[in-house]
Structures are given as structure tokens and as C-alpha cells.
């Protein structure tokens, strides 16, 4: 089942390195979703994609002044509005 999304939404994984965007929606399984939301990645939060690890995965984010790292596969289901 393809997820419905608005045309101006892009996956966090596709956000340019260094860019900041507003989070719109967190997908993925329930445990992942709850975990990242409890760490402050709730809809409306500003999230910056800071870096990609040297081996291409995972990626480093900053949200609410806190640095987090999630894998690229998961960053594909976290949606932001540029």
C-alpha cells in the first residue's frame, strides 16, 4: 500500500546535507516511530540533516539542539517539508 503524501513533502533521506526542514510525519513500524517521536522528532519540529557517516549510513540529524543518528532506510519514512 503506497503511502499518501503531499507533493511538497520529501523523505528526510533526500534532504540536502546541512539543510533544515519542518518535520511533517513519521512512518515506519510503531516501535521506531514512538522512539524517534519521544526523542523530539514530532510533527512540526525543525530538523537539520547534518552529515552522512563515512560508509554512507547512518545519517546524523539535529533536532531541538540534540544530535541523533538514524539509518538511511528509516530516514526514507520520515517526511519533511522543505
Amino acid at each position, binding site marked *: 500500500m503506497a503511502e499518501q503524501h503531499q507533493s511538497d513533502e520529501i523523505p528526510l533521506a533526500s534532504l540536502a546535507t546541512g539543510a533544515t526542514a519542518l518535520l511533517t510525519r513519521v512512518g*515506519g*513500524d*510503531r*516501535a*521506531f*516511530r*514512538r*522512539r*524517534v*517521536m*519521544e*526523542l*523530539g522528532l*514530532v*510533527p*512540526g*519540529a525543525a530538523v537539520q540533516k547534518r*552529515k552522512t*557517516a*563515512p*560508509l*554512507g*549510513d*547512518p545519517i*546524523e540529524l539535529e533536532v*531541538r*539542539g*540534540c*544530535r*541523533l*543518528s*538514524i*539509518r538511511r532506510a*528509516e530516514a526514507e519514512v520520515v517526511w519533511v517539508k522543505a
Partner: protein
Amino acid sequence: MSEPRPRPLIALAGNPNTGKTTLFNHLTGSRARVGNYPGVTVERRVATMSLGPGQDADLVDIPGTYSIVGRSAEEQIAIRELTGLGGGRRPDLVVLCVDATNLVRNLYLALQLQELGVNLVIALTMMDEARGILPEPHKLGAVLQCSIAPVVARSGEGVPALVELIRDRLATPDADPRWRWTPSRLLRGAMDRVSAAAPSGWPKDDALALWALMSVTETDELHGVPPAVRSAVLIGGPSGEDIDEEVITARYRWLDEHIAPALSGPPERSLTDRVDSVLIHPIFGFVVFLGIMFVVFQSLFAWADPAITLIEDVFGAVGGWVATSLPPGILNDLLVNGVIGGMGSVVVFLPQILLLFFMLGLLEDSGYMARVAYLMDRVMRLMNLNGRAFVPMLSGFACAIPAVMATRTMERQRDRLLTMMVVPLMTCSARLPIYTLMIGALFPPDRLWGVVPVQGLLMVFMYLFSVVMALTAAWVLSRTVLKAPNVALVLELPPYRAPRLRDVLRMMTSRASMFLREAGTVILGFTILLWALLSFPKDVAFTQDYEAQIAAAQTEAQVAELTAAQDGERLRGSYGGRLGHAIEPVIQPLGFDWKIGVGLIGAFAAREVFVSTMGVVYGVGGDVNEESVTLRERMRSELRDDGKPVYTPLVGMSLMAFFALACQCMSTLAVVKRETGGWRWPAFLFVYMTSLAWTVSFVIYQGGRLLGFAG
């Protein structure tokens, strides 16, 4: 006389990386009592803290957590400790460590605790880094309606005021639940339904109902949730995803409106940014990483060696002294070879354990361990593990004992178990003497194409073989026995901070004493058992009258030769020797005879013991090492009943593969038992590794013979 009141119980909670351990050490000072939470490989640390003259309390350290909800057994620890659910005692007070430089995220947990209605005191840590951006603590306390004590855990600044606050709050508790948001009609209905279903003994409490709604799923690993509560959660109503989003968003909305505006800016992170620009740089990052990992590995592999040798020498000297000062006999032998030898084989692990935990403490407390996980995640994912498994795996190349203990730094139970199950496959240093002996005795010192030395190539091959087998085992186990829902990696990259030496040393000594107490006793027991197997019965029917011959011997060399021959015959006649005979049908298809079987039994004490056991078995004396020419020649000349040599290169390959894969190490089993809290996992480890070893050796030996190699 007043009735003795029970000591107050205080729980210390907080996010990871908030200085919680440092604060715990400051508040207690004395040694912590360390136990295990039932069913999970997580430690429960309790220590006495002084509230004033003659006034003590118990302080329990709740493992660092971002939230009280969760679907796994280890995530359930927090709610159990905070509420006393599941038979524990409800704490009289909870001290929450809140990182002042990361206030909003940290206070999320505070809101959960206030909803639960715990008697709460907030310790605002990292104050030294947060000055200038924080509102006055008392203003923050007014917004949060909660007592707040600012502290600098590193220096202890503010700790006396915190203790005073704790004392006040114990005297006048404030445990009214506080909710900062109103549940929607749908959620309200679901919470009421769960509360109504709760049987007696399960509090009818909104926060607990919400906990159940957010934690219980069809496939959770939670213990002790009443079936009625479980079915009330799963019966329907709003979806779990909708509840999660509503609740989490509502709490953050309150924090964003009430806390975030009071902050005057983001914390200073330029140091961390500058350090990270090197440490996770695509090139320099790996250079530094390799350098640091080299130090970790080298310290276990080489730097621990002088201490290990010293321990062996001391125990050897004590044993020698006891041996000569007591009359010879069974008691003497038991004391020297069983008890003293056994204690020696426990203590000998201490240098590596202390060194590894010193390094781990520095890596963890400085914040670098999170970067190791970040850098190596892509690699460790091949094993269905995350980057945090890297250091334990690397340590496995030195010794499985500290490596298994190092799995504590990993967050998930399943990841810890999976790592523990494959770490013993790594080529540890105890396997090297066996490889050296086999390769030296059975393979020519030739060079392939005139350049590559065959013997060196074989050694490299054995290392690669162990890595491939560990990868394969992890791949298979993670899809079968340790199959678990794929949990996404969510890794916090904390700011770099200078580790506090006292915390690191405290963890080192606590780990070491735990190893001595719990794993050490098992290892000692095994050693005495093995000693008995290889020493009894004493009345072996010798083929020659050694005593008479020794008495008549002319030279010392003759005496030594005769004694060695007698020892060999005695060992071959022992229970262990008979066991070797008994297992011969099982190991014959691998190309091993019963004498090798005796060596395998002896090697269970530690793999390298195989070398000296074979020395005794072949009557060249136990005082040989892997470089011994006598032993190598003796092996090459050893013939089977049919007159063919016992040791061929093919048998050597089969034997090396067996040692690479079999769990020939009682200390590994003892330490896995200690870490997992039972015999189930060590039993599994032993059975799977030994079966794997047998199968691979069988394929090598029988396959080699089919291909025409001499068997």
C-alpha cells in the same frame, strides 16, 4: 522507643548521558550492591546514601532511559522500579537527572513521571555547560511545579543542596499526578476501558492505563501485565499509532510552549563540532578510529601480557612452595593443581578485564563510543547487529571473557545475546599456541611461489576463517534462535566530555570483583573437576616398574625421561584418559585418535592447555610449549595401529578447524552464565559451537580424504 521505620527507597532516573552515574557515585560514595534484573541481562545497582547523621536511604540506579514506555522486557524495568509493579517496592522519592543543556528533550521524561504521580526531585546536571542559557532554577521549578536542584555532577557542586532537598521532599511528599494535556475523547475512552479492566492489585490509574496502551502489543515481551489489561488494550479503539502521536505531540507541545521560550539560546557546542569534524571525517575519522581501536586491541593482546605472566609466576611459585612444604599425596596435589591452579586461572583474566573496562569507560564517558557505533554501523549491520557491537567483537580477538563482559555497553538484550553467542568464534589469543604447534609440526616452512610463507599464510587464513564463521553464525542465529523484530537504530551522539577518572575506576573494580565472585567460582569448580578427571584413579597398572628404574637411573636426563613416561601412562589410565577412549568413536571421523581426545578434554580448562596436555600424553612432559621441537617431532612420529602417521596436514587442518569453532573454554561458559543469569545460554553456546566444529572438521577430513589427501 519508636518503631524502626524501613529505610526510605529513592530511585535515580534519567536519560542516558546525563551524568547519572557520576551523580549516583557522588550521592552514595560507598560500594554499590550489584544484582541482575530477573530475565534480562541488565544490572540493578543499589547503594546506601546518607541523608544526614544516622539517617540513611537506599538509592537504586534505574538504567538510563528516554521514556517509561516500551515493549521489551528491559524497557519495562523503568516502570517497575518507579511504581513497584511486579512485586517490588514503590520508591518514596524519585530523583530525575535532567541535562540542563538539553532541557526540552530531558523534561519529556519528567512529564511522564509527573503524570504517574511520583514524589519527584529534579537534579539539573551539566550546569557548568548550561550557564547563561537557562532560566533561574527556581523559575523553572515554578513552571514545572517541582523541586529543582542545580548540580555539577563532575565536581559535586550543588550535591549537598540536592541532598537537603531530597530530605525535605521525603518529609513532605508531593505525589499528586500532574497532567499538562487533556486526552482526546477517544483516548479518554480507551484509558477508562483499560482502568476498568484492571484486576485488584493493578492500580486504577490513568498514567498506568496510558502506559499499557502505549506499551502492550500483540508481540511485546512484557512480563506480569494482567491478561484483562492486555485484552482491554488489544480489543480495539484508537490505533496504537494514533495514541502514540497524540500523547507524544501533546507533551512536546507543552514543553515547546512553556520551557523552550525560557531558554536564551542553544548550548555551546562548538568544541564538539570541531572535534567531530575530525573524528567522524571520512578519512581522518577512520585514521583516528583505527589508532584508538589498535590501542584497545593491543592493550588486551600484548600490554596485559606482563601482568598475566606475573600472575602465572606468582601462582606457580605459591603452588611450588605448597607442593614442597606439604607431604606428597592427594591433598597436596588437590591444593596445588586444583585449588591454587584454579584460582590462578581465574585471576589471570583480571589484567585484560581491568584494561578493557578502563578503555570502555573512557570511550563511553567521553562520548566517543557513540561515534564508534556511528562509524561502524554499516559494517556491523552485516551481522544484524548495530555499531555498538564493534568493540566487544574486536575484543574477542584477544579473549572472549572480557569481550562477553563488554556486551553490557549494548542497549538491547537480543543484541547482547547475539554478540555473546558469536564472540567466542573470534580467534582469541589462546588459540594461537595450538595453531602455532599444528602449523609448525605439520606444514613445511616453504614459500608459495617463492614469496609467501605457507605457515604465515595459514595463520592469516585461520583469522579470516573465524571472521567468516562469526559472520555466518550471526546471520543464521539472528534469523532463527535470536530472531527479533528488526529494531531501528536510533543513536544519540552526545557532546564530547572529559571522562571522570573516578567513575571509570569504580566501574572497573565493580566489574572485576563481579567476575571474581560470580564467574570465578564456576571456573574454580570446573578446574577442580578437570583436575580430578585427569588425576584419578591413582593406582594405574604401569607397564614398567618406573619407581625401580628411576631409582636406578644414572643421569638427571634419564630420571626426567622416565618421570615423563610415567606421567604419560598415568594420564592415559586416568578417568580423563578413559573418557578420551570413550569419545574416540565420535572424533575418529574427524581424524582424531583417543590421545587427541584426552588433549581436547584437558583443553577445556583453556585452549592453550592442549599443548601441555599433549606433552604429558606423549610422555615428553607437560613442560613444553608450542615451539617445542621435541613435541613436534614426537607428533610427527606418532603412528596409528595400522602403521600410518596420526598427524597429517589434513588432520592438522581438521584439528585447527575444530579449535577454531568448538567452545573449548570453560571460562567463556562461566562468564556467559554470569552475564545471562542462567545455564540456558551457555548450554546453547556449547552445543551449537561444538556441533558446528564437529561438522566442519568432518567435512574437512572426510572431504580431504575423498580428494585423495592422506588421512
